[in-house]
C-alpha cells in the first residue's frame, strides 16, 4: 500500500494529466524518493493506485534509467561516461572510484553508503569530467581525486 504522503504527492499531480495512468512515471519517481528504490511491492502498490496492471507499470519502470528496480545505497553516484567526459578522463575517474570505494558500475559499497552508476551526458560538458550525487553536480573533477566530492555525502 502506498503511504499517505506518497499518495498525497501522487494525487497532487493528478490534475496535470489527461489520464490517471499517465502518472505512471511520476508515481514511480515519488515512490522511489520515499523508499529509495522501486521494489516489486512498490510496483504493485503503484499499479493498484493507478488502476493498472503491475506488468504495465513495470514495463514502464524498467524502461527508464533513473528508476531503480534494485536496491541502491544511500547515495547514488552518477558518473557521466558520455563523450566529453570520456575525452576528459571519466574512465580514470571511474578507476579511481573503484579503487577508493571498492565498487564498479552497478555495485553498492558493503556499508550501503554508495551505489555507482554510469549516466548518459549530464549536460555538464563544460565541466567535464562530471558526476552527480543527489542534486549536486561536481565538475570538472580531477580524475585522480574523483572521490573528493563524496565527502559531502554521508
Amino acid at each position, binding site marked *: 500500500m502506498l503511504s499517505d504522503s506518497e499518495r498525497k504527492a501522487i494525487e497532487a499531480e493528478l490534475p496535470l494529466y489527461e*489520464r490517471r495512468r499517465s502518472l505512471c512515471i511520476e508515481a514511480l519517481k515519488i515512490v522511489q524518493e520515499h523508499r529509495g528504490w522501486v521494489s*516489486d511491492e512498490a*510496483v504493485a502498490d503503484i499499479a493498484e493506485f493507478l488502476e*493498472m*496492471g*503491475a*506488468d*504495465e*507499470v*513495470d*514495463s514502464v519502470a*524498467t*524502461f527508464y534509467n533513473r528508476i531503480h528496480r534494485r536496491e541502491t545505497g544511500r547515495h547514488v553516484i552518477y558518473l557521466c561516461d558520455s563523450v566529453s567526459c570520456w575525452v576528459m578522463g571519466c574512465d580514470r575517474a571511474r578507476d579511481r572510484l573503484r579503487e577508493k570505494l571498492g565498487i564498479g558500475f552497478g555495485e553498492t559499497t558493503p556499508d550501503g553508503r554508495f551505489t555507482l552508476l554510469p549516466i548518459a551526458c549530464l549536460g555538464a560538458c563544460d565541466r567535464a569530467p562530471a558526476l552527480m550525487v543527489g542534486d549536486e553536480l561536481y565538475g570538472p573533477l580531477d580524475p585522480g581525486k574523483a572521490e573528493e566530492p563524496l565527502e559531502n555525502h554521508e
Partner: protein
Amino acid sequence: MPTIHIDGTAHSIPAGVNLLHAALQLGYDLPYFCWHPALGSVGACRQCAVRQYRDEKDEHGQIVMACMVPAADGTRCSIADTEAAEFRASVIEWLMTNHPHDCPVCDEGGECHLQDMTVMTGHCSRRHRFPKRTFRNQFLGPFINHEMNRCIQCYRCTRFYNDYAGGTDFGAFGAHNHVYFGRHTDGVLENEFSGNLIEVCPTGVFTDKTLKRHYTRKWDLESAPSVCTHCSLGCNTFAGARYGAVRRILNRYHAAINGYFLCDRGRFGYEHANRGDRPRQPLVRDKEGTTHPAAAAEALKAASDALAAAKGVVAVGSPRASLEANYALRALAGSDRYSPGIASAEADAAAVLVELLRDGPLPPASLRDVEHADAIFVLGEDPAASAPRMALSLRQAARQQPLESVDKLGIPRWYDRAARDIIQGATGPLHTAWTHATRLDDIACPFRGAPADIARLGFAVAHHLGGDTPPVADIDEALDNRAKEIAEALRAARRPAVVTGTGLRSRRVLLAAAAVARALARVNGENARLGAVFGEANTVGAALLGGPSPEELLEAVAAGKADTLVVLENDLTRRVDPALLRRALEAARCVIVLDYVATPVVDRADIFLPAGSFAESDGTLVNHEGRAQRSFQALPHDGDGRESWRWLAALTDSPWDALDDILRALAEARPDLAAAADAAPGADFRLNGRKAPRSPRRYSGRTAQLADRTMHEPRPPDDPDSALAFSMEGAAKQVPPSLLSHYWSPGWNSVQSLTRFQEEIAGACRGGDPGTRLFAGAENKPAALAGSPPRPFDPAAVPGLLAVPAFDVFASDELAALSPPVAERAAVPVCRLHPEDAAAHGIADDTDAGIILNGASAVLRARLDPTLARGLVALPVPMPGLPPLADDTYATVRPAS
C-alpha cells in the same frame, strides 16, 4: 482496383492495403516479422524493406518498409533490388546476433518463421564474434513454455496479448537490446487467449507446453481439419496427432469465425481425448450383474439383443455429439423416443433462439460480423465465459467507433501503431447486461440485474428504438435512461449488433432480445445482426433435430413405460435432476451408453460402446449462427473404438456403411438440414484422382517402432468416410479448405504460410470458407416471437434467493475441464452472493454455504461479490449434485454447519 508495379510487373490489387500485404497476396516471397494481418503494421522489425520509386522516371527510389507504405494506385517498387535484399539479409543477421541457434532442440523447429525468413533472405554465415546476451525464462502456467533467448523482439506478443486481447499481466520490459517479453514476476498468464502467443510468436519463445509434454516433430504430425467442440462458436482447428494421441491443436483460419485466433479452452481442451481413464473397451454386464470387457462384435450382439427384447426403447442424444450420431440415434429410437439431450429449460431457450435466428428479423451474426459491429448490446449472456472467442471479437468491436477518427485523419486502419496512438484506448458503445461482473467489463458499459430486469432493459431498449414495442410499465428512471442510451447507440451505428444467448435459460430475456432485434430491424436494420450463444458445440444441430426433453424420456423409464435407455455421449448428471436420473437408471432394465468420456452414466451402463472423440470421429456440427461444419478424424480408432454413428448404424437396419450414407438419409428425411451434407466434400471427392493427405509432404514418417516385428511399413489405415488419406501422399494443391489438414507452402513452413491459402489476406479461404449456413436466406418473419416485459424482480417478494448460473471459461465446458492443463486453470466452484444478501443469510466470505434447490442440496464455498445483483445466488456451472437451473429457480442458502 489499384494497379501496382513490382519489379516491373503490373498487378491489380485490392484497395486500401499496404505494400507488404499486397506483395504477399500476389505470392511474392517478401520476409517480415512484426506485421500480422490481424495486428497490423508497426514498423519494428524492418524486415520487409523494398525499394520504392516515385514514378516511372525515378531511377533512384528509396528503401521503405513495405508494411508501412500504402499500396496506392501507381505504386512502383522493387523487391529484387540488391540494396533492399542486402538490407533484409542484414536484418536477419542482426536478429541472429543474440539468437541461440538452438534449432535442433527447439520445439518450433521445422515450423519456425524465423528459420524460413533466414533461408529466404539468404543469410547463412555468422560474422558476429562477440558473446550473446542471455535471459532467464519464466514459468507462465500450464499452457505456455517460455524460452526468451530465442526472442527477436518483433513485439508481436505484447501487441497481441496486451493491445489486441486486453491482457494486463504481460509486457515488454527493459530497453535497448535488453528488451524482455514476459511477466513482471513468474506466474500463470491470465488472459484466456494466451495460447495464441504460440502462433503469433514467429520463433520459439512461446511454445505449446501441452505439446512439449508429448512432443512430436511438427512434420511428423498427422493432422486433420477439425472443429472445436468446446463451445457453440465452432472455431476451426487443426488437430495434430501421432502414435495414437492428439498432440496439439492449431488455429485453422476461417474468415467468418475464428480468423487467426482461438481461445485457450479450445486450444488446450483437447487433452480430454488423451486421458488415461478414457473408456476404450466395450463392456457388457453379465447375468451376475458385473460388467466385463467384450469384443466389439460381442457388445454389438448384446446391444441388438437388448434392443430386440426391449419393452420400449428411449434414446437420449447429445448437444456435444455430431449431427450424424444424433440422427442415427433418432433413427434407432424413432423421432418421438429420441431426445436431443439438452436439459429442458435450456432446450426451451435454445428452441426460442433457433427460431429467432432462423425466422427472425435480423440475419445471424458471425464472429466477423460481431468484430466489425460498431455498437453492440449483449443481453443476458456472458460470452467471455461461455463463448470465449466471441469476447475477443467484442473487444475489437469496441474499437470500431473510435477508429473512425483514424479514418478522418487519412490514416489507414492497418497502420496499427498510429491508430492506437490516435485513439488512445478509447472504446465505443459496448453495452452488456448480465447478473454480475464479466471479463469484458474493462471495455463495456455493464448493466447488472436479475434476468427479469435484464429482460425489462431489453424491452425498454426496443421501445426507445421506436416501433411497436410499448413502453415498459413502472420502469425506474435509471433503467429507462440506460435503455435510451443503448437505443441511441444502436440507432446511430453503421453496423449495430444485438447478442444474446441461452446462458440464463430465460425465455423472457430471449423475447426481449427478439423485441430489440425487431425494433432495430425497422429503424437501422440494413447492416444489423443478431448474435447468439448456445451451450455446446452442436446444441443448434441437436435442437434442430428436435424431440422431447431428456426429462420426459427419463420419466417414461422411471414410470416403466420404457425399459431400455440408450445414452449417446451425454453425462446426464450434468443436465437433469439427480433424483429423476436415479429413479430412471434404477428402473431401466438395460442402459446402453456410447461415449468417450468416463462419466457416471458410463459406470451405470449395462452395455458400453466406446465412441470416438473429436479426434477419431468424422461428423458435422452446427454452430451458433447455424453454420454446419464438418470435422474430420485426425487419428484412426484404436482397438474396438469407433464413431458413435457407426455403432448406431450397426444397430439399425439401415444400410449405412459410411458417413455420407447417413448424411444422404438425413438430407432426405430433413430437407431443412440437407445443406449439412454439403459442409465438406464427400468421401468420393478426389483431386487428380487423389485424396487429400493428412500428413505434410515433409513427413519423415518412417519409424523403427515396429522394426522388431516387421521391417515392412504398415499399410496406412483406410478411411471410407472422408476424402482424406492417412498418408503424406495425396493431392498437393488446391485442396478445398474444408479438407486442408495443415498449411505449408514451399519456403513457408510455419503457420504464416496461411497467406498462400487465402483468396485475399484476412479474407476468405482460397476455395471458399468451409461450412454451409442452414439459416441463410431464410424468410424473415418480422413479427416472430412477440412477448411482453416481465414484472421487475423484487427480492423481497420471492422465496429465498433466485439461483442464476455463473459460467467459468475453464470450468464450465465439460470436455475442456477434463483436460488437465485446462483443469489447472479452472476457477474453484463457488456460490456468489451480494455482500448484503450474504449478511442477511449469515454467510461470511470464503465460508461454506449450504444450498438447497428443488429438494437437492450441496455445499459450496461462498464468494461475496458486490457486483452481483441483489436477491440472487450465482451458482457455478457445472453444479454437481444440484438440479439444473431454469429461469425461475429459487434456492435456500444458509451457513453450512
